[in-house]
């Protein structure tokens, strides 16, 4: 893959990368940092990508590592719990859709699998590779996340969106 192809693939995945970064990080500046670091890291390690078909999965994995790195650096100042509470607080201040707010209100363990599967359309196998989790764990988190989201949306709409 040359630089042009890399650039095109990154731009094609940009929205997806932002959504995934947003599921981990509580502000846009951090998302921009994580995305920038992931792009640079991926370009540097491009020679290690064996099959270009898996570029998006591979890049998403790198992005999540960068997100976790940022959270670790923030952890020195605040706890994980406070950081994720901030996600909700920030989300509530912006003019986002109720669906987005409801997803962002999920516990962090349920949020990423949910976004990867339902929003970004990754397969179960890809999510397992990205999150380094077993299929049964991903399935369980999706099931619980769906259930929690249904309850949240029922509060908002009075019924669950299918």
């Amino acid at each position, binding site marked *: 893959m040359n630089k*042009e192809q890399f650039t095109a693939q990154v*731009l094609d995945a*940009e929205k997806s990368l932002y959504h995934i970064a947003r599921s981990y990080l509580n502000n846009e*500046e951090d998302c921009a940092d994580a995305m920038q670091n992931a792009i*640079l890291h991926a370009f540097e390690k491009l020679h290690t990508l064996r099959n270009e078909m898996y570029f998006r999965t591979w890049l998403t994995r790198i992005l999540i590592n960068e997100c976790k790195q940022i959270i670790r650096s923030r952890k020195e100042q605040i706890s994980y719990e406070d950081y994720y509470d901030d996600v909700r607080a920030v989300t509530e201040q912006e003019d986002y*859709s109720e*669906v987005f707010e409801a997803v962002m209100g999920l516990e962090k363990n349920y949020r990423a699998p949910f976004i990867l599967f*339902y*929003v970004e359309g990754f397969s179960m196998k890809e999510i397992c590779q990205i999150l380094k989790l077993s299929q049964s764990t991903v399935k369980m988190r999706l099931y619980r996340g769906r259930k929690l989201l249904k309850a949240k949306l029922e509060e908002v709409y009075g019924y669950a969106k299918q």
Partner: protein
Amino acid sequence: MQNNEWNEAFPEVPEHVHQVVLSTLAGLDDGKVKKVRKMKKGKMIILAAAMVAVLGMTVSASEIFKWNQKAGEVFGADDEQQTALVMGDIAREEYQTISDNGLTIRSIQTIQDNNCFYALFEITAEDESVRITPDCSMDFLTDRQEEDNLFSMLSWGFVDESRQAVSNSRYFEMIGTKMNPGKEDLDLIIQFTSLNAPGEKAMEGEELLKGNWEFALNLHAAEPVCYELNREYQIAGCPVTVNRVELTPISIKLVCDGEDARQLEEMEGISLEQADSLRALFVNGIRYQDGTVMEEMGYQELEAGYSEGNYTKTARLSSVIDVEKVSALLVGDNMDEISIR
């Protein structure tokens, strides 16, 4: 919900995050990786009554750095110049779209440096029977009342019919200058408030559509290339010391000795205190190192005046110039040469 419906319920990539991605990609170098400077977060204003959609780029790599065709025409920039200016953060694609009361305004492109900016919008009425002609106007406010004015608007309006046929959609251009030119990126807040039909006088047209369309455009202050000259040149037959020339692809700053400029003023029989212009220092052309001359036809003075013993003139260029290849400025009616090499 289907996957695409979930995706639609999620926010688009914010413009400043998109700019970070573009800058990062532009800074990639084969074999090397360098961390690029990130943009400041722009003030993204989302009105309750309006829908803001920041569209993501899904174009192929060869089209990534291409400008909007209209903006390319305005500045006469070829593909190579367009790419260079996007990579230099002087030209930016904007993808903010706001719809309100049957009118959609989309910011398309900004081109800017430390002195001035150009912004291109596309304004479309949902009702196809609404004809937006070049004589229509837009009412708009800039900056915020509680803040100092950061910008001064020089010209604005819909593009003429020679550049776009009349329909329910039309490009709207805006050219302005920064009140305090400097190195800081600035957020240009533009709040459109109405589309007006042509009137007999400016500002008198009937209000066609009223609404609230507010944009926050982050303008990067691209740094100029500076030439400390402190050399004497013959300009309009007078010896004039030019202390410094600053060039960007879209503007020029010329700093001359104040006393020498006074001589030119006397010779032309004008008074700069009376807002006259010193023709002898109009930059009417550029000479490139290969001898090619680019005549500057659409020169627009941004600022001129005396300060600290110098006479300083800042001007916007109508066409993009290749700063690295400029060998001389050609000034005045006689195209007197100010060599910068």
